[in-house]
């Protein structure tokens, strides 16, 4: 191997077996191939050197060269991180996970993303790698026909604004550590929970305990996993090596999406065919209630934080132009797909 090899140890916030890590390793191989083996990305499992919550701090300090999480993981450091990692209810302006990529790559999102890390005051270079949404509404003990039914259940909500929005619409939201969720569902300490989407959910094991699965949800329509490289480490790379990472990251955006469609499809098939999981349509009043509450909390955050307002404005400007087209096209896509899916029943 070449003598000037740079090793970037990337600690992820999820276990080594997760799909995201699989795709991250795929990205690492691309980087290695593109740099003739001179830049090696070595993936460390969650907790290897520092705890999950301290991952970004560790990259910032140079304790590890890189980190891998979802952008909204760092919402506690800056509220605008949520607009990149999981813009609640499609940023309140109908941005789905594909439209998000359009905003990110051509609508000014990437430039704002670079600014985010400066706003946060961390010395990292970020790369958006994997769109992993849309996430499901979640798993329930009993079917729900309306929001009134939903409000009867104790629901373990996701972190941050997406979760707070549930509290705002009167859901009995429970705070609970990740490790407690499954036993809590099993024993009936809580009645419902969400994690991600069919593949990760089935790895998590919800189907062993709950059988009613709702795919359509708004709290994390768009979810993006990204990579942070310590700024000094990144700057020590040659321009060609930096370009290689950028190109591999762009490739990863589409590869990850393609991969997830197939993997989630396989998982969903397995869940419904082999585990007795029943799919339901989400009650219609959910969409209006959640969307209104989400918009309210977006407005509130925009009023409190200038950079948040700036990013959200950019998304709104983009949405005004792109969403009408994309929603129209998606309606046709959805009908197309649904027609085939129904023919399988």
């Amino acid at each position: 191997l070449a003598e000037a090899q740079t090793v970037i140890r990337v600690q992820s916030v999820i276990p080594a077996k997760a799909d995201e890590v699989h795709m991250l390793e795929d990205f690492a191989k691309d980087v290695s191939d593109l740099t003739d083996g001179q830049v090696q990305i070595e993936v460390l499992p969650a907790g290897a050197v520092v705890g999950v919550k301290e991952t970004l701090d560790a990259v910032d300090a140079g304790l590890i060269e890189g980190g891998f999480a979802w952008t909204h993981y760092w919402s506690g450091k800056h509220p605008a991180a949520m607009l990149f990692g999981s813009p609640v209810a499609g940023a309140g302006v109908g941005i789905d996970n594909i439209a998000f990529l359009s905003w990110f790559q051509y609508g000014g999102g990437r430039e704002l993303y670079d600014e985010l890390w400066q706003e946060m005051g961390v010395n990292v270079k970020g790369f958006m790698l994997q769109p992993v949404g849309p996430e499901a509404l979640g798993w329930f003990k009993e079917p729900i026909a309306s929001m009134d039914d939903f409000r009867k259940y104790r629901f373990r909500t996701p972190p941050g604004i997406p979760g707070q929005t549930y509290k705002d619409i009167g859901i009995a939201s429970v705070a609970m550590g990740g490790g407690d969720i499954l036993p809590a569902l099993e024993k009936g300490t809580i009645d419902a929970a969400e994690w991600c989407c069919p593949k990760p959910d089935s790895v998590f094991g919800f189907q062993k305990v709950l059988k009613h699965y709702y795919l359509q949800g708004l709290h994390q329509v768009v979810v993006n996993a990204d990579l942070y490289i310590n700024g000094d480490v990144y700057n020590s790379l040659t321009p060609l090596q930096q370009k290689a990472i950028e190109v591999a990251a762009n490739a990863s955006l589409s590869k990850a999406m393609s991969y997830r469609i197939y993997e989630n499809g396989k998982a969903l098939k397995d869940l419904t065919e082999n585990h007795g999981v029943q799919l339901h349509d989400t009650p219609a009043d959910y969409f209006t209630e959640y969307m209104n509450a989400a918009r309210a909390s977006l407005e509130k955050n925009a009023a409190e934080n200038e950079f948040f307002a700036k990013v959200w404005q950019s998304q709104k400007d983009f949405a005004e132009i792109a969403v009408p087209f994309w929603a129209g096209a998606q309606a046709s896509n959805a009908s197309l797909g649904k027609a085939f899916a129904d023919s399988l029943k």
Partner: protein
Amino acid sequence: MSSNDLDTDKLDTTDELIAEARQEAPGETPEDMTPWMRPIVANIDVMNLWVGRITCLLLLPIMGAMVFEVVSREAFRIFAVMGADDVARELGLGPTLWAYETTRMFSGAMFMLGAGYALMRGVHIRADFLYRNWQPKTQATVDACLYLAFYFPAMVFFLWISTEYTWKAWDTWERAMDTTMMAPLAPARTAMPLGILFLLLQGIAELFRAIHQMGPERGARFTKVLPYYAVGLLIVTLAIFAPDIMPIGGYWSDAVKAAGLTSLAQPWIGVVMLAIMLLAIFVGFPISFTLIFLGFAFGAWGFGTKLVFYLQTLQFNSVMLEETLAAVPLFVFMGIMMEQAGLMERLFTSVQLMLSRTRGALYIAVLFVSTIFAAATGIVGASVTILGIMAAKTMNRSGYSVRLAAGTITAGGTLGILIPPSIMLVVMGPVLEIPVTDLFAAAIIPGLLLATLYTLYALGRCWFDESLGPPLPEDERPTDMMFVAREFFLGLVPPAALVAFALGSILLGYATPTEAAGCGAFGAVLLTLAYRRLTVGRLYEALLKTLEITVLIMFLVAASNFFGATFSRLGTPTMLTEMLLALDLSTTWVLIIIMALIFLLGWPLEWVPIVLIIVPIMVPVLVELNVDLTWFAILVAVNLQTAWLSPPVA
């Protein structure tokens, strides 16, 4: 604890964990101590005493939050089942988002703030096999040298970095990212630099004590060095953290390079670190600090001083925010309150009387009571002592074998770390990524099995040799069986109810393990109240004792995590995993080797470093070999429980 002399006066609830708690009252100093040192030592002691007295009160809101959460959430469920969830919401019932945050933040703050108090009390745990054989003068000299060489630099650097880290949280008003509520982090995080400051100050008092203990001559020589030392430490600190004020860092790194120290590959530095740890533990400095010193020295060698303290800060932060670990103080408190209710005496006496005609009745009584109380407390030790005191007298009178008696008492007492609720399993859960609930459920059968085996062993011995455990003398036998039955009932039902309440609430789904710990602790308070044993003084004493044990365990957890993280950062675990897998051994052999290793390490080391340093190294290998981790966890727990009983510890 030595098995041959059951000197009950010296036993303390925490005897298994604490080599020697200090007897001197805080603020008292020896007459012949250097005069200018006396007020310093006295004031620091008194300050940390008050810090401890105030900090221990944090347990009350933790307990309150957990009880409130369970009651409010369950009430909501009941209303919802009746179709009246809107009424419940109207009444403000339902799960809360704040209880979880309060619990983890308060419990994190509790062990950090109490660290200096615990050092003052002398309750940080030591492995003192070498230490205890030295002359007091030698002990003092070794202690003082370690304080100067490692303790003060480590605490000063740690204080610096953790202050920076905390300041940033205040400055940006950073919030938690892993919860819906996203509570602000800065207030609780402030406990970290504060706690380190208290530790640092207490270190000064401890150093002066050691200097006094050296005797006047050596002490005076040591004292002369101190000013030079202080200046030196200041220069080094500035060189590391403020290189623009003190730009001498370059000389140091040149010297390190010249000595050829950078040539050793990082993973191998980790191997050296692990080897030295096994030796260094025996020097007898508190284990937590030894681990911190080693992480510091080898981390600084491998990847730099500033980074190693950053790593320590992040690791401590992580432990402070781990909600599962809030179960530690709660289960400890529950056990202590149960003791205070005096139920153990009652149950023990009644079992002993009921079986008074049987051979080895007292052994059965000891093991029966231990098993019941093991299910009511999270640690070892607590029950050992009380049982020791009660049983030893009667056993002596009845002519029982001292050796078998001591063995039974210790074996019974240590069941507490295996039979749930077990703090060891609480700590092990996150390490193996297994829900604590599952570990608790899995540990019940092996725990009871072990209790049965101990009983059968003791009875078997008595069967063959009656002199080991003769029936009670005639005059000790009960005359009124109704009275015995009543005592048995009153002794058994309350703890059984409490245990069923705490464990049952987990297994039946009313609560998570931490919530159940809170409810159990609260239940124990009620029980003590019901038995008219609750006074403000007793409650306060229990809170202080809880703080001591909590600091002891949690500080060791944080220190072990830091040591393990340094080890990981050096890349040693990856290397060891690859080496182990390359050996191409069968799963059975790998397990036998791992268990033998853990058993051996179980003598000198506490379970905490084993669970947090050794077990994580093994996990990747086990995953690769498809070993069921829940089963492995229970195997480790049984193994450690047994290792505890073997010499030299037991």
